[in-house]
């Protein structure tokens, strides 16, 4: 053990360079896997914040196999009457809201920001668990009277008002003036389908129809009575809508279904990323073997001498094995720290998550590499004939 450490110390640069291969390998495994799992966690969180008892009814045909790709310019054939039909058509549906949505520009005293504008009924807030941080949310009264009021997500609120108080101020959407009614509590990146609630602005459904010059709901958001009732609710919705519409006119999306498709896709990406990184770890291991083989050749005389003064083959084997294990283990530990630090640093750009299994995998793998790629050179060293070794120039 001491001998191995001493040998490593006398060849500092070489040891460090060898280690570098392992360091990079382990760090990239950890980093890439952390990005992959972070992505998965992010998506799951997005969905969870809306609750998994939600069902979306979108216009047109949405193919689940093409996740993320929105249907190309879907034309909504929904009518407001569908909302009440759906509500009546099932016992497991708790609530329904029609939604119209469009991206738009919103200005306040020269400050401009773009946001997704959602026109909804007042029940939207309860369904999505959205509540007002300051002020209040849209009420039934606002919807019925087509009031020009707006509830801001935390991001547009900050963009327009900074630290100033937004409630009661007048903002302009398109060329129509709205009064700010409240600001929503930030969910820190919650919500799915249609983006992040923090980046939305919400206005009454009736006002939105007028604002966008439309007469139909673009989509509908349904809340089932609980998670287990989602499938039943979805089939009830289909049955209700098929009485009036064709099968291609709408798509009923269950969150769970969507979520599992996305996470499946993401876990494949995670594994692929990890696999690519593992290859660099393997290359690092071969680097160790290469260096150790060179080292055995270079130190042939030393090995001969050690044997002459009483080292057994086992002593020599252990020395070289421990050398390579130390290199790969220390490299592994540094790699873990570096990968962890890297994923922390990346956190400001993408969500990352260092998982225990990737740490264990990487450190176990690096130790294994030390042994596997260290064994061949070590055996070679141990088997050297001392007479030949001492004669070696």
């Amino acid at each position: 053990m001491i001998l191995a450490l001493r040998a490593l110390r006398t060849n500092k640069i070489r040891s460090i360079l060898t280690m570098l291969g392992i360091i990079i390998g382990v760090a990239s495994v950890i980093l890439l896997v952390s990005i992959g799992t972070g992505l998965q966690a992010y998506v799951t969180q997005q969905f969870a914040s809306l609750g998994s008892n939600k069902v979306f009814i979108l216009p047109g045909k949405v193919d689940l196999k093409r996740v993320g790709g929105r249907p190309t310019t879907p034309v909504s054939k929904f009518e407001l009457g569908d909302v009440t039909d759906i509500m009546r058509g099932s016992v497991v549906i708790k609530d329904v809201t029609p939604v119209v949505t469009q991206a738009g520009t919103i200005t306040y005293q020269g400050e401009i920001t773009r946001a997704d504008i959602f026109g909804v009924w007042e029940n939207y807030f309860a369904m999505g668990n959205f509540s007002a941080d300051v002020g209040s949310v849209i009420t039934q009264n606002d919807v019925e009277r087509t009031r020009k009021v707006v509830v801001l997500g935390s991001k547009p609120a900050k963009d327009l008002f900074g630290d100033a108080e937004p409630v009661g101020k007048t903002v302009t959407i398109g060329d129509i003036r709205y009064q700010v009614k409240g600001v929503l509590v930030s969910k820190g990146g919650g919500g799915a389908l249609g983006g992040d609630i923090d980046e939305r602005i919400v206005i009454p459904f009736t006002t939105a129809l007028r604002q966008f010059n439309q007469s139909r709901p673009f989509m509908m958001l349904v809340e089932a009575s609980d998670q287990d009732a989602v499938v039943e609710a979805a089939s009830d919705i289909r049955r209700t809508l098929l009485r009036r519409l064709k099968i291609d006119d709408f798509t009923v999306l269950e969150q769970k279904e969507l979520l599992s498709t996305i996470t499946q896709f993401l876990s494949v990406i995670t594994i692929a990323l990890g696999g690519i990184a593992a290859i660099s770890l393997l290359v690092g291991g071969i680097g160790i073997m290469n260096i150790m083989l060179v080292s055995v050749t270079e130190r042939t005389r030393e090995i001969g001498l050690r044997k002459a003064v009483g080292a057994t083959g086992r002593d020599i084997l252990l020395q070289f094995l421990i050398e390579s294990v130390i290199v790969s283990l220390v490299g592994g530990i540094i790699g873990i720290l570096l990968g962890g630090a890297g994923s922390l640093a990346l956190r400001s750009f993408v969500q990352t998550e260092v998982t225990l299994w990737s740490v264990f995998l990487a450190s176990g793998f690096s130790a294994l590499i030390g042994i596997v790629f260290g064994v061949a050179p070590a055996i070679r060293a141990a088997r050297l004939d001392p007479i030949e070794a001492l004669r070696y120039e």
Partner: protein
Amino acid sequence: MTSDVLRISHISKIYTMDGVEFTAVGDVSLSVKHGEYVAIMGPSGSGKSTLMHIIGCLDRPTAGRVEIVGQDISHASDHVLARIRNTSIGFVFQQFNLLRRTSAIANVELPLVYRGIGGGERRSIAEKILRQVGLGDKLNNFPSQLSGGQQQRVAIARALVTDPQILLADEPTGNLDSKSGTEILELFEGLHKNGRTIILVTHDADVARQARRIVRIADGKIVEDKKVGRP
């Protein structure tokens, strides 16, 4: 009564190279008593190196019996040979064979490492021996910072650090200038006077003359074995 530290009876060593047998040493018998100072002499290719390797437990004879301090090693395992090398034999080589990037004292400590002696004790033993060979002020120097003669002294200290029954030196002055060579031989003389058994392998008659007994080898056989007086 002095006992034999080395007893070789009728050993031979035959190498087979490309199917052709080659006898390096044939039917050699030799005994060395405790405290003797023996020179094994012969030209290169005479088999003296093979004999030395066998005495030094680095090699086994093809036939015959070798006893080191009463222990038969003719058929001993590698592991046992390694232990005997560690405890009973001290090697001194022509090329010193010091670990280059290791300090003098660490070089001397090396055999004790394989004996499993702890760091502190190792250091104090090694320091004592280095003082004995006159290098008390060079403990932490690296071999490259020492002269050839000093390097050989470190090597001798390393050979002596385990207090071996036999000090086995292979052309110890071969790589040294005559002044350093003389100093090394003087060191051997002192060790001999203190009762150390020394076997010196050389082709140099002047060096061999320092010993008390000269064994001449030619073509794998002992051709002369005579006691000599101190010149």
